[in-house]
C-alpha cells in the first residue's frame, strides 16, 4: 500500500513557515501529522535531521518545494512538545520518533496478551517483537528500546514486570 499524501503536500505555501500565528499553528499541526503518519507507514523509529530534509516528506520534487532546515527544526520541536519525539543528542541532529507513544504501545501489547489468554506467563523481549506468534501484530518488529519503554510503561501501571534473565530480558504480564 503506497503512502497517501495529505492535500497540503501539494500546496506550495505548506513549505513556507507562515508568519501569521493562527495560520502557522494549523500548518504545524498538518506537518506533525504528516511526519508521524509517514514514519508509521515506513516503520521509521529514528530520524536524522540532515537526511530528513532530503526525504520525500520534507522535499516535494513534483512542485519543487522543500521545507527549510529551520522549519524542520520547528516541526520537530512541536513534535517533541507533544511527546512524539525525543532528541538523541544535544545538537539535535538525531531523534527518536514515536508515532505511537510507549503507553499506547504497551496497551496494544497487553491487549494481545490478554486476548490470547497468556496473562501470568513469561515472554522474552525477542519473542514479543520477533516471535512467530506476534507476526501480523502491529508491534511485531518493534525496536528493542521502544519495546522496553512500552513494557516499562505497563510496569508502572502494574500490568507487567520486567525480569532480567541470563541471556537478556523477559517480561511477565499480570
Amino acid at each position, binding site marked *: 500500500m503506497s503512502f497517501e499524501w495529505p492535500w*497540503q503536500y501539494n500546496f*506550495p*505555501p505548506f513549505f513556507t513557515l507562515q*508568519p501569521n500565528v493562527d*495560520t502557522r499553528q494549523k500548518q504545524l499541526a498538518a506537518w506533525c501529522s504528516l511526519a508521524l503518519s509517514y514514519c508509521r507507514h515506513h516503520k521509521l523509529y529514528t530520524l536524522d535531521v540532515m537526511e530528513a530534509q532530503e526525504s520525500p516528506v520534507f522535499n516535494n520534487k513534483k512542485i519543487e518545494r522543500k521545507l527549510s532546515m529551520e522549519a524542520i527544526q520547528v516541526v520537530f520541536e512541536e513534535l517533541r512538545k507533544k511527546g512524539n519525539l525525543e532528541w538523541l543528542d544535544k545538537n539535535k541532529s538525531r531523534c527518536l520518533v514515536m508515532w505511537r507513544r510507549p503507553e499506547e504501545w504497551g496497551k496494544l501489547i497487553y491487549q494481545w496478551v490478554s486476548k490470547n489468554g497468556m496473562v501470568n506467563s513469561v515472554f522474552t523481549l525477542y519473542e514479543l517483537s520477533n516471535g512467530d506468534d506476534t507476526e501480523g501484530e502491529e508491534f511485531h518488529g518493534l525496536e528493542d528500546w521502544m519495546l522496553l519503554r512500552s513494557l516499562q510503561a505497563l510496569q508502572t501501571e502494574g500490568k507487567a514486570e520486567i525480569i532480567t534473565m541470563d541471556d537478556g530480558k523477559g517480561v511477565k504480564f499480570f
Partner: protein
Amino acid sequence: MDRFSWSNGLLEINETLVIQQRGVRLYDGDDKAKLDVGVALLSTHRLIWRDVKNHECCIAMPLSQIVFFEEQAAGIGKSAKIVIHLHPVPANKEPGPYQHSKVSYIKLSFKEHGQIEFYRRLTEEMNQKRWESTPVSQPIHTGTGSQAGKTRAVGIVGIERKIEERRKETDKNISEAFEDLSKLMVKVKNAVVFIHFPAKEMVELSRSIANKIKDKQGDITEDETIRFKSYLLSMGIANPVTRETHGSGTHYHMQLAKQLGDMLQAPLEERGGMMALTEVYCLVNRARGMELLSPEDLVNACKMFESLKLPLRLRVFDSGVMVVQLQSHSEEEMIASALDNVSEKGSLTAEEFAKLLGLSVLLSKERLLLAEKMGHLCRDDSVEGLRFYPNLF
C-alpha cells in the same frame, strides 16, 4: 468711460440682479468722472451705474466688454477701488455720457465700502459668463468686434491683448497638434508655462482635449487617454497655499490639508482609493509648479486630515510605508478584494496583483500582507519569489 451707454435702468427679461452697492464713484482712467456718487449694480449681463439723486441719470455697459479687473487697496484719504480694463468701443454702441475717452479702463471707487463682496461677485459672473448662455431679448453689444484684434495698443492693454491672442493661438495649436500627439505634449507644456488659466478653464480645456483624442482613437488606447487627461488635470493649482499667504505653523498646515483634500479626491478615486505618499508628493508639487512643498510640510498637512474631518486619511503600514487613502476606502473591502483576486488566480505575487489593480507594487504588497495578517492569505516563499495563496489551512 466711453463704453457706457445711457440706460433706463431696467433689467431685461433674462437678466438678474447680482449685487448693488451704494456710494460708488466712477473714474475715467485716473480722473474722477463728471458724474456724482451713485449706486453700482451688477447684473448677470451688465454693469449698471445710477445717480443717487437723479434716477433718470443711469448708464450701463455689457460685462462682455470687460477684459479683466483688479483690486486697488484703500490708502490715506483714498477709498478702495476696482480697476476694470475694457475692450475697445464697439462700432454700433449707443450714445452715453462720454463720446470719447483717452484711456481704456475705468475705476469704481467705493466710498461706503463693499468692494470685497462686489469684487467677488464680479469674479463669479465673469467666470460663469451667464450672458452667453442666456442672451437677453434685446441684444447687448459686445466689444469683441472684428476690428478688435487689429487695434494697436500699448501698456497694460497691449499686454492683455497679447495674452488674449496667445490664448487663442494655444486653442488653435491644440487643434493642430492632434496631427502629432507628441507635439501636443510639448505645446501643452508651453501653455502651462506661459498662460495662467483659471483652474476651471483648465479643466474644461483638458476635457475637450480628452474628448478629441477619444474621437481619434484608433492608434491611441483608452489607457493613454486617461493618462493624458490626468496629466492635464493635474496641472496647475490656481493659488497654492504657501507660507507667504498663510504664515507658518499649524494654520498653514491646516489650509494646506484642505487644499490637498480638494485636489487629491479625483486622483485617489482613479487609483482605487490609495496612493503612496511619495506619489502624492510628486503629484502635488507638479501641480504647484513654482511653489514647491517640502516633504515635512506634506506629512504634517496629511496628519491634519483627521482633525479637519476631511474625507482623506494618512495611513502608516506596519512596514513604515505611508499612504494617503480615502476614508471610504475601508480595510475590510481591501482585504476582501485581495482575497477575491488571489482566489480567482489561484496565487499571486505582489507584482501580478499590482498589474491587476493598477496600483504600485509597494501598495499591492501591503494589501496582500494585510490580508495575510488577517489570516485570509498565506505565503509561499521560494526561489521564484514571494507568492500569496488563499489560506486553505
